[in-house]
């Protein structure tokens, strides 16, 4: 498979009153055509900022992409003009957020909001756009399309709105859909519906999905490839089965063990001690060393590099580095 987008050495920093926060720190990965890549991590690990950086939506002047390259087709998204970026955002890459309510205009009907990008980017006329809007609403599994098209956002539930957001996002046939915690605000039964919708729309159009989530259950269900982030860095990545069955990085292992699973109840739950370090107090050490059970002396001194630990499986951990023994 060809890669659709390649992120090389991306760094996004934020200036806060107390210093520079390296929200995304030198990360590289790629997404292939038709692939679902999940970025998983806890709050503050930089997973959403990665998405924002790709979309050119980093909030300046507080934050800034300070380095790297985002190759999409023959372009570097960090180098192109604002106008060009805007076109790509409409046509080739689209994004959905956690809170659908805040992404929709409360005083415009749902139908109109689906039609607008179609008229703008696909140059459809009003009639065609309306017909396409109804198709899209049905495509995301909502019946009574005409009635829904005529209603306003506040008349619909969160799960419905999220599906409408998906409809808008896929309306122009994007090559990449970025979904930033799309089901976090939803109930489980509704989450199941939305994930189902995402999977179906992907199958129909062969688009790629970059799914950002903190829920390992959602990852297992959706992903082809998984990237685990911690404190702005990628600590492990690999194919979903490989990663879940043979996790290498102690952080990934800890995350997998600390989630209670139905039918596998243990008397005591494993928990990773301590907490995520403050982004202002990071040093040259491995960022995870003070929470790590397998910490060895070098972990406190130098940061491990992301390197291959098995075929198609990368981890950034000294336990798998030959140098560590030296």
């Amino acid at each position, binding site marked *: 498979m060809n890669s659709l987008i390649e992120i090389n050495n991306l760094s996004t920093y934020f200036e806060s009153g107390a210093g*520079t926060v390296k929200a995304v720190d030198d990360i590289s990965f790629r997404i292939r055509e038709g692939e679902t890549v999940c970025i998983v991590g806890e709050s503050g690990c930089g997973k959403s900022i990665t998405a924002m950086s790709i979309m050119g939506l980093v909030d300046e002047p507080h934050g800034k992409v300070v380095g790297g390259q985002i190759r999409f087709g023959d372009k570097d998204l960090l180098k192109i003009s604002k106008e060009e970026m805007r076109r790509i955002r409409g046509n080739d890459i689209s994004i959905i957020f956690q809170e659908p309510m805040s992404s929709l205009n409360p005083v415009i009907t749902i139908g109109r909001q689906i039609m607008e990008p179609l008229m703008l980017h696909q140059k459809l006329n009003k009639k065609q756009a309306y017909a396409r809007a109804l198709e899209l609403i049905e495509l995301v599994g909502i019946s009574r399309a005409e009635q829904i098209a005529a209603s306003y956002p506040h008349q619909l539930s969160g799960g419905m709105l999220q599906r409408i957001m998906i409809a808008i996002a896929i309306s122009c046939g994007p090559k990449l859909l970025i979904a930033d915690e799309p089901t976090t605000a939803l109930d489980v039964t509704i989450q199941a519906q939305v994930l189902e919708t995402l999977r179906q729309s992907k199958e129909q159009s062969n688009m790629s999905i970059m799914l950002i989530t903190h829920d390992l259950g959602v990852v297992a269900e959706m992903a082809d490839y998984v990237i685990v982030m911690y404190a702005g860095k990628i600590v492990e990545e690999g194919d979903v089965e490989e990663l879940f069955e043979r996790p290498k990085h102690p952080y990934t292992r800890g995350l997998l063990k600390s989630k209670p699973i139905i039918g596998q109840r243990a008397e005591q739950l494993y928990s990773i001690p301590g907490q995520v370090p403050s982004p*202002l107090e990071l040093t040259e050490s491995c960022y995870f060393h003070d929470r790590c059970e397998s910490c060895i002396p070098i972990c406190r001194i130098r940061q491990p590099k992301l390197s291959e630990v098995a075929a198609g499986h990368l981890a950034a951990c000294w336990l798998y580095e030959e140098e560590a023994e030296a």
Partner: protein
Amino acid sequence: MSIPTTAGRPEKAIRALDVSDSLWRQSIRQLRKNKLAVAGFAFIAFMFLICFIGPLFSPYADGKINPANMHQPPSAKHWLGTDLLGRDVLTRLLQAGRISLTVGLASMALSMTIGTVLGIVSGYYRGVVDQIIMRVADLLFTIPGLPILFIMGALMSDWKIPTDYRLYLVMLMLSIIGWPGVARLVRSQMLTLREREYMQAADVLGLSDKRKLFRHLLPNVFPLLIVIATLSIGGAILSESALSFFGLGVMPPTPTWGNMIDAANNVIDFEKRPWLWIPPGLAIFLTVIAINIFGDGLRDVLDPKQNTSR
């Protein structure tokens, strides 16, 4: 964009950890970064200082009438010239400032007190008390402020109230106009705070009303109060000036910035003797602007809406 060197960072972070700052101290630190607000504060402080201390050093502080010396333009002897009765304008300006600032402060304090107490009672206990207080406030809101002030001012003149008392009555009038706004803001703040989970926690912990009010609610209303208080001083100074300008507020010989501008009432003074009305006009303008800028700065650091993320 400048990125601090890594060597500089740990030290900074450690310092941030060692100091346990209250939200108050954080706010003050933030406020000091706002240059404009600091300048505003400096000007207000300067105004207070020279108005209250300045006249002590003036040889003309007794305000004696000296017809021989009338309408002198600014000179080395009289920096801002003299008025119709030969009094030194600069000295009168400072003395007027004393009155205007006092009226502003006192009517602010009074309307804040009334407004806060009534707002808290309304917002905390709700029910019938709330209804009564808020309907009275609504009533005062429906009548435009300035006309009421004029009517009250005219009544004072009609009843021949001695000038000494008029000063206090003006303060009282201004607070009657001012409190409903304060009460409403405080009440709405109380209503939001009541719904906060930490207030529910206080209920579950079985804390007394007294503690809930004074330890939990008031400290959270306080920042808002400071902002309204600051901004309302400016408003009070303006209203008092308007009233005095029309001869309905504080009457001469007691000087206020408002009744000094009254000189611009007459064409000759307006055209030929600008030293009579420009200084008090400027004094009002600059003081009110300084207060508003400072108040805006305060609002930026203290506004509860900006603190919700904490």
